[in-house]
């Protein structure tokens, strides 16, 4: 069979990126700070968000969208903070995309938030590819995971603006090597901001809140539209 070549030239991310740009414009108009949280399973994402929502809810309107492949457990835990929480069940999908965010917001009926957290599916590969229209992408690295994690998942750390080292209260017990972790982060994202914290003891949470509040102030001064 004789064949001819037909050029198609399309980037698979074009559709998601266009949708994410729309979301970003919408969040700019409403003055909502959007934080996309990436991590491996079991790194303490839900515990950190539970604590963050509780603290922020004293002064701001906050909400969370929670991606999970199968269960509503994380959303139920976050709802204990009293903040509005909506679950996105992704099924076989290993990450959230901009379309899922747009649909979840449309079906939620919430007015506006000062801060919206998006808890991505626990996975450091796929979520790194998908822009959700966020202002701040945060990646978690717990002290139990191995200091070389950034080298194994360079894109997740390269595309995030801030790394949160979680469970710092047990760092000594698990032999966490701070210098090795720092070197691995620097190797994939030179100059990356890093905060150490423990959602359980509260260590480092004031600094984390300060980062969010500074971002929030900056966002509020951006003219709408």
């Amino acid at each position: 069979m004789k064949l001819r070549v037909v050029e198609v030239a399309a980037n698979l991310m074009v559709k998601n990126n266009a949708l994410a740009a729309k979301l970003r414009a919408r969040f700019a108009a409403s003055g909502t700070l959007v934080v996309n949280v990436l991590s491996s399973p079991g790194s303490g994402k839900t515990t950190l968000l539970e604590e963050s929502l509780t603290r922020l809810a004293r002064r701001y309107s906050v909400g969370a969208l929670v991606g999970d492949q199968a269960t509503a457990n994380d959303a139920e835990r976050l709802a204990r903070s009293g903040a509005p929480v909506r679950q996105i069940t992704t099924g076989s999908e290993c990450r959230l995309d901009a379309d899922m965010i747009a649909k979840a917001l449309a079906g939620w009926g919430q007015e506006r938030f000062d801060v919206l957290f998006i808890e991505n599916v626990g996975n450091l590969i796929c979520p790194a590819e998908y822009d959700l229209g966020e202002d701040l992408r945060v990646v978690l690295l717990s002290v139990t995971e191995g200091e070389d994690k950034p080298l194994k998942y360079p894109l997740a750390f390269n595309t995030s603006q801030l790394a949160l080292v979680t469970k710092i209260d047990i760092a000594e017990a698990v032999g966490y090597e701070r210098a090795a972790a720092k070197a691995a982060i620097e190797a994939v994202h030179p100059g990356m901001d890093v905060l150490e914290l423990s959602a359980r003891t509260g260590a480092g949470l004031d600094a984390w809140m300060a980062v969010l509040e500074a971002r929030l102030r900056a966002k509020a001064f951006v003219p709408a539209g």
Partner: protein
Amino acid sequence: MHEVTVALGLLEGIQTAAREQGIERVAAVNVRIGALSGIVRDALLFSWDVATVDTIAAGSELRIEEIPLIIFCEFCEGERAPLPGTGLVCPECATPSPRIVRGREMQLVSMEVPA
């Protein structure tokens, strides 16, 4: 991990282009996949075979061109290929680089159709 979604995205791109040009059958599809995309070659090939059943691309060959990771080293002022497992660090001068030049591709390049 998201090979099925990627296969469906590729198929959608192919179907759209084929519709526009009145193409009824696709024999092969050429794509570029970057090293950082997290795509497993064999999983994508398998997903492609499953995704294209009963479509214009049924039984078509998916040709994957794998694009290696390339960074721009500001110290050497040139493009460099980091060694595996070292992150985004220049293999010659060990300077970390935040600039990824290639390796994030997920591109549909072309399709081959009966002449």
